[in-house]
């Protein structure tokens, strides 16, 4: 099974992101209550393999609830869940006042997942799952804020994809935006794939 958690504050374009990546994946919208929603068997196919992904969508109201969510997933009871997932995609609005603290809590979750993985797999050097933060904005974002968030996520080893810019390629010819998110999903080492000849 290939499982990814998509989590973010309420009304933070989680469903919109999934819809732009996979056509017709769901009738739901970001205005609905999507907490606990599971989108199963979303097809992903590349020239090398095809597979089905399960997206587990979760939401929180505010920073306190995000802290509780992180604590819950870090708990001993959630060990099975941490072992079962292949990545967590965190979606946030650039206008949120607690982005940096939220990213810090997110990095603790990733660190714990990596630690659990390395304890079970002593020969591996790293967890192969997705560590991704996706930022979007309904209004133009100040360059200083962008730089701050980018630096913070770099320090914590989380890749940041900025959906607030329309372009799918940056000045260095690298994929950005939705194109980069798709690339990350395609290059992830999914455990359950059908290899194509």
């Amino acid at each position, binding site marked *: 099974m290939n499982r990814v958690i998509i989590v973010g504050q309420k009304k933070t374009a989680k469903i919109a992101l999934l819809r732009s990546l996979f056509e017709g994946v769901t009738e739901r919208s970001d205005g609905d209550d999507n907490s606990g929603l599971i989108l199963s068997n979303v097809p992903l196919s590349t020239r090398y393999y095809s597979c089905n992904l399960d997206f587990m969508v979760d939401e929180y109201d505010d920073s306190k609830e995000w802290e509780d969510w992180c604590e819950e997933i870090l708990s001993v009871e959630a060990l099975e869940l941490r072992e079962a997932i292949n990545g967590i995609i965190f979606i946030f609005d650039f206008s949120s006042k607690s982005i940096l603290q939220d990213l810090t809590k997110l990095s603790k979750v990733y660190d714990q997942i990596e630690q659990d993985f390395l304890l079970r797999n002593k020969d591996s050097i790293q967890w192969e799952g997705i560590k991704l933060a996706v930022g979007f904005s309904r209004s133009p974002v100040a360059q200083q804020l962008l730089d701050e968030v980018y630096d913070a996520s770099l320090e914590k*080893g989380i890749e940041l994809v900025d959906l607030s810019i329309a372009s799918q390629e940056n000045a260095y010819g*690298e994929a950005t935006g939705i194109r980069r998110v798709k690339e990350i999903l395609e290059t992830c080492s999914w455990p359950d794939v059908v290899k194509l000849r």
Partner: protein
Amino acid sequence: MAIKYLIMLSKQGKVRLSKWYTVISQKEKLQLIKELTAIVLNRKAKMCNVLEYKDHKIVYRRYASLFFIAGIDVDDNELLTLEIIHRYVEQMDKAYGNVCELDIIFNFQKAYHILDELLLDGTLQESSKREVLRRVGQQDQYELEDELDTKF
């Protein structure tokens, strides 16, 4: 000059290729990769491509979502190392046909083969672009012919 190791890292911090031209234990390799991942991925686009690391230097170059990291001695030429990395990327691009990370993940043996034709013991052994591709193509051909033989 000799490259001590060459590591290909994705932006997600995943190791896609690692080639060692110096004898170090597996534990040290893992430690080195872990440290390099933390150092190189933290660097911004406009930062210098050369940095000092322990008793040697790291030269890295970023191509799309991949970082190519080479470890060299303090006395070695960094610009030459950058050129070697670039030559390797060019060769891969020609061999794979517009190479991307997915190609390297699923056809990693070709990436290693091209590297082995290009470098021997960390030193450039074949400077001709055409010759490296010719040898790789020839070996692929032998492999294909072998498969045909077993079928009959």
